[in-house]
């Protein structure tokens, strides 16, 4: 097609140019920076930055926390959004207002949501009052390691709507006859979900998982807002490390950290992708 219709390139060129200029070139440029000493002369030091970085305990801590936070929040958002999407499908035309309600947190800026969250999880806030009412001790949600809980909950609340929309679109493509047949055969909702829905929408589910996981790595501004540049150990993320290094002109550390992390994500997704079923090979 491309050989026959060379005019197609003309139409693709603006988009490709944008992609090159704003993604590819900076990506390659960033790799170069990660191999330099960060001085005004940008002398090449090759992999010294990476060696030093991986030996740095703050980097290790940030990476560990980022991975943990993402691994905790991604399954929750995945499961939750899937269940909600299935429920919305059953409502058919009446599902629209609910979908809109679910999407609203996604549209609201994080800082606005955070203010609400901080009030709810404050030492004297609603959550602690509920706990006291249940005979439990108050928890310092915002000032202890328990900060992970409100952070993950906020992330889930904000992003579940978007995942629901993607799942909903995928669910539309599953023929209703399959469910009717399964019902006739005596399959309950969980069996239907496991044997019909999930296998048929596996590529989409993979997409949702990827997006949820990648977005989970961006959990930073919420923690920064509450805990500043140096929050508690449990919520000190890789972004904190990168942000702090950036403000100290250590660009080589920032880029090395970013590419190290990108490599980890790439490997993980490559493994996932290569496993059968995700590509839809087994349909």
């Amino acid at each position: 097609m491309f050989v026959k219709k060379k005019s197609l390139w003309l139409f693709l060129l603006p988009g490709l140019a944008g992609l090159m200029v704003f993604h590819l070139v900076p990506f390659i440029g960033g790799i170069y920076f990660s191999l330099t000493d960060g001085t005004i002369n940008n002398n090449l030091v090759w992999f010294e930055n990476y060696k030093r970085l991986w030996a740095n305990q703050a980097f290790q801590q940030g990476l560990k926390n980022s991975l943990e936070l993402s691994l905790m929040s991604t399954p929750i958002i995945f499961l939750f959004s899937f269940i909600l999407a299935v429920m919305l499908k059953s409502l058919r035309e009446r599902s629209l207002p609910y979908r809109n309600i679910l999407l609203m947190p996604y549209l609201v800026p994080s800082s606005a949501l955070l203010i609400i969250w901080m009030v709810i999880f404050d030492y004297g806030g609603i959550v602690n009052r509920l706990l006291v009412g249940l005979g439990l001790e108050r928890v310092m949600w915002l000032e202890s390691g328990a900060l992970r809980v409100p952070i993950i909950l906020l992330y889930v609340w904000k992003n579940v709507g978007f995942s629901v929309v993607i799942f909903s679109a995928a669910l539309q493509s599953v023929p209703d006859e399959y469910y009717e047949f399964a019902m006739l055969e005596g399959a309950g909702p969980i069996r239907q979900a496991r044997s019909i829905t999930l296998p048929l929408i596996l590529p989409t589910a993979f997409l949702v998982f990827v997006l949820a996981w990648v977005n989970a790595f961006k959990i930073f501004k919420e923690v920064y807002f509450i805990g500043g540049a140096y929050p508690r150990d449990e919520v000190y993320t890789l972004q904190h490390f990168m942000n702090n290094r950036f403000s100290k002109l250590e660009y080589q550390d920032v880029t090395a950290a970013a590419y190290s992390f990108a490599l980890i994500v790439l490997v993980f997704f490559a493994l996932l992708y290569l496993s059968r079923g995700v590509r839809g090979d087994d349909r």
Partner: protein
Amino acid sequence: MSYFNKKNTAFTILLRVFSLLLVLTLLPSLPAAAEEKPAPKNLFGSELMDKSETVTSAAAVKDTLYFLTSTSLYAYTPGDEKAQRLTDSHVDVKNEQDEIVNSLSLNAIFSDGERLLGFNGSDQQLYSVSIEDGKLQLTDPVKLDVEQFMQGDGTFSYFEMPIWMQILDGKLYMKFPNYENKPADLYSFDLKTGEKTEHKVAHLQAITPYKDGTYLAVFKDPQQYYDEATSERVWPKLVVYDPKDESVTPHASGYRFDQSEVEIFSLYYDAAEDSLYTCTDTDLYRLDGDFKTPRLIGYLPTFGSFMQLPNAIFSLADGRLAILTGQNVFVRERTEAGLTDTVALTMAGSLDDPTILSRIMMEMDNVVIRRMEGTEYNQLTSEQMATLFLTGNIPADLMAINSQSFDMDNLIKKGYLVDLSGNEKITGFVNKMAPNLSSSLIKDGKIYGLPANTMVMPLTVYPERFKELGIEIPTSIMGLLDLVEQWVDGLGEKDPDYTLFSFGDNMQDSMRQYVFDRYVSYALGAGDELSFDTPIFRKLMEKLSSIDFGDYATDISIEQQMDDGFWQDVFSKKQLIEINAGFELPYLVSRNNFEGPEEQSQALVLPLEDGMDAFVEGDITLFSVLQTSEKKELAIEFLGNYVDKMDEIVKASFDLEANEPIINPNYEQEARQFAKYIADMEKQLREAKDEAVKSNLEQNIKGLKEEAEYQKQRNQYLATSDVLKMIHSYVSNMYIMSGRANAQRQAYYENYELRQQYFDGVISLDQFIKQMDDKLRLVRLEYQ
């Protein structure tokens, strides 16, 4: 015919002799021509600023431009290198005992083209001004009815300077400051008779003769800053004033004076060129033709920190323009030709005292400093700086960097700052600095910056007051806490005229914060690692917790905050100790200069406990040259001159061996000023009729005389040896934080809620220590 016939030979010889003579005559003038100095770009250098003298007005008489300053009369004729001082700007009237009983001084000078005139606001008379035997002569007085310009009552009335005073069309015009929006604020006076005419116009902030008897003026109502309907700024505009019918109409060009946030009102119209000149606080403009588009023709090195004078543009006999500001007179070309040899150095960041930059520019005529956009009033944040350095797009040659907000070590390590060691002035100064301070500027034997501002926050005590109460001055922070404990236990009730601190607020909170801050300062000064899990910190907290502050731990209520009486009571008491007050280093010296013995203060750096070392962090702004500058040589030269113009007290403060007292160059002037104050008051006393007023004046005069006698002894020096020793004792305990230390300090201050939770009892001391130390550990880990 042979060339060498007699006629030709004679002619040739004559020609050759003539040529030889011509060459011999011209030869001596060639070096002079080669060495001909360029015309000056300013007429005073930094002389006026150095002497704290200000230009108040100017007048042109034929080819000479006269300037009146706060103390003197100067003159400049094109061809002179600088303005020449002619005489004092006042005439002292003395009695038989040679004491000054009156002083006749000029508030402003004018010219009707032929002679110099001057106005004295005290006696409201216009004089002819001349100089005889080097002394000012004021003759032919004409009384002016300046009732509208007089402020105050009776004996205490004074002449308020008009917004501008100018001779136009044979009359002296004055415009008074019209803050009450009166419909008329312009008056003119006949030069011969003094007859006054009120003009039914208002808010003409500057004026210049235009065409056909009209005037160009700047119209600005000071009450109207924003248009309420549109919320847009109301800018001054160009108008045409016609005195024949007192009409004011906007000029056809619709020109607005919106080139600068600082509203400057200066105009000069040249009828021969049909050109209008105007200026802002930093730029000189010319408008031709329709007056719509201003052309930039010159820079003014003022930064808006100069006192602006109205109607400040004059034409010089050599065709150039003179622009008056309070601190200097700048001379500029009438076209863009004046810009060609001007080099602009761009500066990022700001200095607390930008006048020093102006002083340097007055000595380096071809250099002008421009501020990098967005940094006129603010320092760059670390994120902004990081972004600039990352992109490499740093539109600055010089940078003022605050040591507490940015990692200087890193900037130097990454090669962003230029080595200044090649400049002798800089090297000479830095090598004399206290090593604990210069170490932040010097790396591997190279110098990377100069200290521009130095803020200190000392603990200040008033020794005399301690003596009066019979209390020992604390020698450590623990000792201070002991004193606080004694105070709240009853010592504070001993004498109600005294207070321990003057803030009037919750003493418990203030002491907690102070002790925390001192601990942080100590820890980072001692070893670059901040941890709260130390015996001394726990001891301090234990001591602090054991003090029962009682009523001293009460917050000021809102009613008290609004109550002037409450604050009067607080500030009327004599405080023993001052904490949490930050100021520039020279102020540590000068704050004592005008105070009596009881008011003399002493800055201390206390260790946490007796026997420990004492440390205090210094907040220094460093002035450096950026490696990305294309004008490095000039920028370095500029910094070298910065050393020359640095405050003498600052220089001496940094040099631990500079203990010689610093003589006050304005001593004579200040003494004369005091004498003038006393003479003015004595004159008021002679004229006073009311007994109560007389009694008040007598008391004031007595107090002034005592003060004058006291200042006579003290003011001889800007800093005595004792004061310098005190400063050196303080400075020798100062340190500038490294990047690592600074990051920890910032992390501590960012987590003030944690500290507050401890104060409020929400978390225990151990919890606070654990949580804070965890954060600080993270900071140090990042620096591995």
